[in-house]
């Protein structure tokens, strides 16, 4: 099991405070910069490892950054704190995005990122809670995170805890039936302590979702299953912050975050082949320049 890096955790705490106290535009800018730093770190990880899921990493990083730097009640130095909010990355193939975010928050030393996917590394191609602090459950096969999150939300309620459960789902992932079984359970049980965020980038591995097995109208589907639904711009940190921290009603919350796969790297944006293509070192240099803007 990796252990926390106290210096980075202290810096994370300061940045969180600065973000919390900043005026809205400044807040957005701080989160944007932080997310783009994680994007760059992730690209380097993938380049070194020669594998990864770059498109989905880029699309989800604004969501992850907003959660970890503005929303989640977690403590990187006490990852097992019982009343922490729970975060589950159900689309586990975008482990690179999660690792770069967790490292930036000090859950483990940032140097560890260089071991991604290397023999015996804690940072496997899909996240493993037994090895990486901050990972709440092992994901990789799609369609597992929502049922597990429902269980965590039921547990939080049973324990009388204020903790909230956030889970990020891929949109293609929603084709798995297990999601809809869990959505029904959450709706039926009125799990208001559960927020499911859909990374709605409209692409899956091989094609567009709507050409493969259409999901729209996705908002109506979740509503019909008993959820409160919000549709937001998944790259607008302020919109994300507002919706994540808004007071909850009596139902589980579904945030459909409209995103762009490959976001932030012009030549990757909305292109299906970047699902798991590995960028060359020249492409990583180009991308890094774009992300530094």
């Amino acid at each position: 099991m990796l252990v926390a890096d106290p210096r980075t955790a202290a810096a994370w705490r300061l940045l969180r405070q600065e973000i919390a106290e900043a005026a809205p535009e400044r807040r957005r800018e701080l989160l944007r910069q932080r997310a783009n730093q994680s994007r760059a770190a992730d690209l380097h990880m993938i380049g070194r490892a020669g594998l990864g899921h770059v498109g989905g990493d880029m699309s989800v990083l604004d969501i992850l950054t907003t959660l970890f730097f503005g929303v989640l009640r977690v403590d990187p130095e006490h990852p097992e704190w019982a009343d922490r909010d729970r975060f589950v990355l159900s689309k586990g193939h975008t482990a690179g995005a999660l690792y770069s975010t967790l490292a930036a928050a000090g859950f483990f030393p940032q140097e560890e990122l260089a071991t991604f996917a290397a023999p015996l590394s804690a940072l496997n191609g899909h996240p493993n809670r037994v090895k990486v602090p901050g990972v709440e459950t092992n994901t990789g096969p799609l369609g597992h995170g929502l049922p597990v999150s429902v269980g965590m939300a039921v547990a939080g309620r049973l324990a009388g805890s204020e903790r909230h459960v956030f889970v990020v789902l891929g949109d293609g992932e929603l084709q798995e039936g297990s999601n809809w079984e869990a959505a029904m359970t959450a709706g039926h049980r009125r799990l208001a302590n559960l927020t499911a965020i859909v990374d709605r980038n409209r692409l899956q591995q091989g094609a567009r979702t709507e050409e493969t097995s259409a999901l729209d109208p996705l908002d109506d589907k979740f509503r019909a299953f008993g959820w409160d639904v919000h549709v937001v711009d998944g790259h607008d940190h302020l919109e994300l912050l507002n919706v994540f921290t808004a007071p909850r009603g009596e139902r589980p919350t579904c945030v459909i975050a409209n995103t762009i796969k490959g976001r932030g790297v012009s030549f990757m944006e909305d292109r299906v082949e970047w699902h798991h293509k590995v960028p060359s070192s020249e492409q990583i240099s180009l991308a890094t320049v774009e992300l530094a803007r």
Partner: protein
Amino acid sequence: MSAPVQETFDCRVAFADELIALARLDERIVAVCNDSVGSSNLVGFATEFPDRLINVGIAEQDMVGVGAGLALSGYIPFVCGASPFLTGRALEQIKADVAYSQSPVVLCGMSPGMAYGELGPTHHSIEDLSWLRAIAGLGIVVPADPSETRAAVRWAAAAATPVFLRVGRFKVPAVTGDLPFTFGTASTLRDGTDVTVVATGTMVSRALQAAEEAAGQGVSIRVLNMSTIAPLDEEAIRAAVRETRGIVTAEEATTTGGLGAAVASVVVSSPAPVRMRMLGVHREFAPTGNTEFLLEHFGLTAADIRAAAVELAHG
């Protein structure tokens, strides 16, 4: 002089070529997949037969059920998905809709074993042989190289019986030569008198290499290519028990219920059982690492096979 580099092959290529060739001749052949057009190597099939590729999206249970429905309606469905998800996620569909219903679906488990290396245990398919062997009426075929893959695809298309085909991605050399593929029959790739190595899939070429090296140490190894795991060629095992002094099994799978367990159950019920060594993964989740690293980590190299065989020969 260095040894010539052996050419190696991704069996998904032979699989797709043969499937397309058969589909040209038989309109009943269709493919079903789970957003895996690329990873199942079905791009060519999709281009030539767009209407005959049913991509259900990321939904393996649906995929196998849909395959069963097609089979029960007179089609010959090749249901293709990454082996861990096809078998693990849709196990009950395989049991009830395919095997128990005797619907002639060809389940194609792509990139099995530890072919997905660094993607980790969720993406490894080492339990598939064990899970599926427990299901009545389901044939299990693990081709060892491209030519056997082609032959197995041809056989499966005509067999009209529920079958699981394990289609390798990890590159292997050609090993079966001109030997025919006969469902339910092991082929002897090399004869020997001291020890028998029963290998399947990616392990067959390694077993041959082990036999070659052991010969230099004065140990004579018979190599059986066990490309059908169920029903098992029990006669070939009984012959090995009679004619050699020990048996090594080698599989890129868990030994809990896979090839090793299948062979052992024949060996122990023989009149004069011989000693065995079962090489495979022993009920463990893999650490992070690429396929080659993991095969070494779990003792699945030619050197490991040779060492196990030599030990039995001397023991």
